[in-house]
């Protein structure tokens, strides 16, 4: 791990046990199955994936809310998996969490001041500092003037304001990393961009690492440098955002990009090519490449037998797909697709 790395995840697995008759194991839900990535300081990364791909479990694992089954996680050089006591407390104060449903994420019986002082109280921030911290973060999320908001309860705020309050709460402990799990998917389209830009500004100002988890590729470009595509508990493609949007390599990424809706009247006439079938069961994932049952480039005897390792056909662009194995010609598949 280099000096500039904030978060390093190696071969992370989070499996949920399925029980039958109380003690007999019926199997596991492999919600996160072998995920590795690095995140530098001041870097934002988007993880894109559809429902049930394991995004949220990944977020919860990174936050320490779910214990990983296997693998390693380090934040700023501190071991995250299996952390207890002080180490866990350090992680709690240094990793912020922004949830999907802003109203649900705020205790309805606490006012803004209580909501923001709770984390400070837990981490024993001195009393005189608290008020200043609360005002600072409210200012940062543009809930100003603070006096107007301190005594309000969550139901008195609009959706956008609620989400900004959630962001303020995640910032109040001055964290190094923020995990945002679908922070805008429950907001009106009109305030999505605003909230995302706010998050981006905060990230740049405080030099935070941000992991932005979404199912909506269209919001990715507002946000991050990097984007990871998650499919069936694995990160199948990692690239810079521009590279991913203009040159998606994995057949699944290509399908996702095609599916982005675009308010253009012409689109009504185009029938988009969407991969048939559904995401696979995470209890019994398909052998080999997990996308192979839906892939139009399916290669019999390869894709359904062996799991593809990460190939780097273009510098800085990793993809787990047999199309890009050595000798096959890195550009081959791509040109074919873009044609």
């Amino acid at each position, binding site marked *: 791990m280099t000096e500039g790395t904030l978060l390093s995840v190696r071969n992370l697995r989070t499996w949920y046990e399925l029980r039958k008759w109380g003690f007999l194991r019926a199997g596991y839900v492999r919600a996160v199955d072998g995920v590795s990535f690095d995140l530098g300081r001041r870097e934002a990364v988007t993880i894109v994936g559809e429902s049930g791909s394991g995004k949220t479990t990944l977020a919860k694992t990174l936050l320490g809310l779910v214990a990983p089954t296997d693998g390693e996680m380090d934040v700023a050089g501190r071991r995250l998996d299996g952390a207890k006591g002080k180490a866990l407390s350090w992680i709690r104060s240094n990793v912020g969490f922004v*949830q999907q449903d802003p109203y649900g994420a705020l*205790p309805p*019986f606490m006012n803004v001041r209580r909501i923001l002082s*709770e984390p400070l109280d837990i981490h024993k921030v001195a009393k005189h500092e608290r008020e200043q911290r609360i005002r600072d973060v409210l200012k940062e999320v543009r809930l100003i003037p603070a006096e107007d908001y301190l005594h309000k309860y969550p139901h008195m705020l609009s959706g956008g304001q609620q989400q900004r309050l959630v962001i303020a709460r995640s910032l109040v402990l001055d964290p190094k990393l923020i995990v945002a799990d679908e922070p805008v998917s429950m907001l009106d389209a009109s305030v999505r961009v605003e909230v995302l830009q706010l998050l981006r500004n905060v990230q740049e100002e405080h030099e935070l690492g941000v992991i932005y988890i979404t199912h909506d590729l269209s919001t990715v470009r507002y946000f991050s440098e990097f984007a990871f595509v998650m499919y069936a508990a694995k990160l199948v493609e990692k690239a810079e955002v521009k590279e991913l949007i203009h040159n998606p390599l994995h057949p699944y990424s290509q399908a996702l990009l095609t599916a982005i809706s675009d308010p253009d009247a012409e689109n009504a006439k185009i029938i988009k090519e969407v991969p048939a079938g559904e995401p696979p069961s995470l209890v019994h994932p398909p052998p080999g490449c997990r996308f192979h049952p839906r892939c139009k480039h399916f290669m019999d005897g390869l894709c359904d037998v062996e799991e593809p390792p990460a190939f780097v056909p273009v510098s800085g662009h990793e993809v787990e797909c047999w199309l890009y194995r050595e000798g096959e010609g890195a550009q081959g598949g791509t040109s074919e697709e873009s044609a």
Partner: protein
Amino acid sequence: MRTVVRGLQELRRYPSAILGLLLVGLLVGVSLYAVIGMPYSEAIHLWRAGVGVWDEYPRNARPVWTDLFTRERLPRTIVVRSGEDGRVASEPTEDGTRSVEIVLPFDFQYDGFPREITLFVDTQMTEGEEVRYTVVWRTPGEQEMTLTRNRRVRRSDVYRISQDGTVRMALPGMPAPEVGLLADLEQRPGPEGRTVVKGSYEVLVRAEIPADAELTARLVVYGQIAGLAGTDHRRRDLMVALLWGAPLALAFGFLGAVGANVSTFVLAGIGTWYGGKTDSVFQRLTELFMVLPLLPVLIMVGHFFSRSLWLMLGLIIVMSVFSGAMKTYRAMFLQAREAPYIEAAQAYGAGNMRIVFRYLLPRIAPVLLPQFVLVIPTFVFLEATLAVIGLGDPVLPTWGKVMNDALGQGALYKGYYYWMVQPAVLLMVTGFGFALLGYSLDRVFNPRLRGV
């Protein structure tokens, strides 16, 4: 907290809530009045009715307000003391003693006969000596009748005129001395019974006492009505029990509700949050206590161990903590525990206890409040039930104890309705007040019932 405050403000919209609040407020006021006006030790002293405490109260007298509903004026108790209204005449005799005559006059203007007539005689003289005294009854018509002659007294004597067989014999045709002494002897008893001769009566106490001795006498003509609540078979003023019953009932109900309902709530929250073994233990205990019958266990403990009110309360709480309410609360907590803000709280480092007490319990607290209010009268009734079946605290003046006495003395059979009805009405008012308040609170805090 906010929902609770807002809900309480909303209560004003319900007239039933106002009435309930008034009733509960009244009970609380009565309790405060009782506790401040009559300290605990005094109340216990009065209720245990030691010698001399209730001398001047009639047995089983109706409350004074019943006089308002009768055509006749019912007699009240008259007390005449030799040192106050009585006249004392004393002159020395030749043999060095004193001859004393105490005149105890009283004006009897009632339409009914007294319940009893008793003369209390006290002496102050050298130990071992005794005095003999004579009692003479003088009617308004200046007729005199000697009730007793040369009755002995050492230090003090209680001469129950109503029970004196000689007097009874001397008044033929009269049902009892207290009737015969005041009745119009000339009159033939008509269908309405005998009439009282109204006017000034006098009781004369004559004695020869040593020169240095003192003799005092006190005449009590017991009425048929006494006190605002009447008296019981031990001459105790029932007001003591009715007043002191209120704080005891409220304390029992409140402590019971806190002990059983609030702790059930908290334990359900803890069990649900920690899950696993904690939850399993709580659930199995609940299932066990749900099938254990409360009353038989209490009866057993009451008979073999102790009938102290507070022991009973403790036992009831222990047996009600893991009650059916545990299941109800658990169901609510299971839902509340999945709220995203609890996950968020975990993510910013809230500990388990903090999550339970600051995030989980406040969410369900609005449901607890009406439950809590509604459960108070059930404990009040339970206390009364225990008292009525004979498991009441032997010392404390509670409503249930009064009803138990009334039942034991056949109050309803003998027509002493006030004895049974007064504590019963108070119990009903308590139940009614808390029920009105509780159901209104339920309507305010339970969204499903709102606007129905």
